[in-house]
């Protein structure tokens, strides 16, 4: 088995006395598409934010190619440049056009030339079907379009792994499809992805590993066939039953 890109070891996170993550352990290997599912408030998003160091873990290690990035001396910005993140609320830069959103990181962080950045940005914007909108401002495009631009922005940095924090939860139902379609395409191209999602169909059909979280712990994990077809824990069964009914 290939060496893991990311190893999470005994990760815990508390906001004051409120413990939201308890002793989380899991690995991400190259090409993995891992879906993290679970009820709202189970700590899924916090876990993803800890991995990108947007939240500081209270305890535990996050090993990126074997190096603990949660340690104090680590250059967070340099690490984040290698780990892409797509947010629920898109977080496109409102003061820039679609194209500039996708080039600014390349130019300022990766120090690419303007022409190289433009070319890379256009390649990925084309891929997510947003190339015609290069001159638009974020306020002028729809939610689904914003999210596709956000994916292109993350891809343009050539990340080793892409984190998705409920990428379709803020979208109108008719726009969910276009974003999931892009994500499916990425998965089939071998992009390593870690996806927090409420889209069970996506978790079941696209990912090769599913993690079910409940009350801040990993309750159960396994292949989609195992977890959806033959869940072992009562909580998992109950959660899935609720989702299928709802």
């Amino acid at each position, binding site marked *: 088995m290939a060496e893991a890109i990311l190893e999470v070891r005994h990760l815990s996170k508390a906001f004051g006395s409120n413990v939201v993550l308890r002793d989380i352990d899991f690995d991400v290997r190259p090409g993995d598409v891992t879906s993290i599912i679970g009820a709202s408030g189970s700590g899924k998003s916090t876990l993803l934010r800890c991995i*990108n160091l*947007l939240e*500081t873990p209270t305890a535990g290690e996050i090993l990126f190619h074997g190096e603990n990035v949660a340690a*104090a001396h680590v250059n*967070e*910005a*340099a*690490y*984040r*440049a*290698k780990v*892409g*993140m797509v*947010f629920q*609320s*898109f*977080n*496109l*830069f*409102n*003061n*820039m*056009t679609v*194209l*500039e959103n996708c080039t*600014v*990181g390349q*130019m*300022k*962080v*990766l120090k690419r030339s*303007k022409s190289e950045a433009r*070319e890379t940005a*256009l*390649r990925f914007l*084309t891929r997510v079907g947003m*190339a*015609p*909108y*290069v*001159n*638009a*401002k*974020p*306020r*002028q495009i729809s939610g689904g379009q914003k999210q596709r631009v*956000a994916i292109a*922005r*993350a891809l343009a*940095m050539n990340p080793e792994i892409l984190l998705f924090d409920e990428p379709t939860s803020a979208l109108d139902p008719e726009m969910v499809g276009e974003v999931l379609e892009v994500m499916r395409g990425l998965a089939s191209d071998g992009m390593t992805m870690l996806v927090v999602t409420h889209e069970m169909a996506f978790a079941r059909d696209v990912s090769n590993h599913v993690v079910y979280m409940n009350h801040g712990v990993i309750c159960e994990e396994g292949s989609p066939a195992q977890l959806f077809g033959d869940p072992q824990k009562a909580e998992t069964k109950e959660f899935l039953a609720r989702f299928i009914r709802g």
Partner: protein
Amino acid sequence: MSAAATTGYLSRILFLLDHYSISFLRGAGTSLLIALVGTFVGCLIGFLVGIIQTIPFRAKDPLPKRVLLRVLRVILSVYVEVFRGTPMMVQAMFIYFGLMQYAHIHMGMWTAAFFIVSINTGAYMAETVRGGILSIDPGQTEGAKAIGMTHFQTMFYVIFPQALRNIIPQIGNNLIINIKDSSVLSVIGTIELFYVTKQNAGTYYWYFEAMTLAMIIYLIMTFTCSRLLRWWEKRLDGPASYDLATTDTLAFTSGMTRFEEPRAEDEDELTNRDLGKGWN
């Protein structure tokens, strides 16, 4: 026509215009220049203070950094409270005469005027900038961090341009206040519009007539500035619509398509332009 023979309100005004228009205009120019420079430098001070006040620091940071930041913040808070909480006229005399008596520094007219208006505006702008930065959705910062930007890059390329757009009305407000309030500098002998008006009025005891002229000139200056700022604001918002790049998408990488070239050619210009980009 001699001054003594001039009796009517209008004819006195015309007399003043005839004989003293150059001195009124010089005074107005001085007021305007003080206001412009003071507002500009004040904004720079405000931005600097605002940035320092909003630098995040965490328990993880090294101790010296945390101590330094804390000390800086206390000093800056004192600065803001003192200069916002006392009248500029008193500040002007306090600084001007204080430096002269005890440090034996005799500030020139311009130095004193620029200095006092700048630090006064800086104190106001610091709070405005801080508010402007805090008003930007934290998601913008997270988006920038997520692509690996440092705190400085995040601030410079993402947060400031949006904060700046939000606080332009306040900058304009400060400029207009400074045009008017530069008049208090007459107490330290700055020869600006009010000083000149008083002088000219005193020559003939035509206070009402001279002040009429001063009122009109101040109003013209403030009104012009407020219109210009409104126009600048509109320009920064950019066009309300955009053009689709309607071309064969497969041709992108082959360089056959022509996208609208950004106006700026190099990165520095891009930055300057970005600073003023519209916001949501």
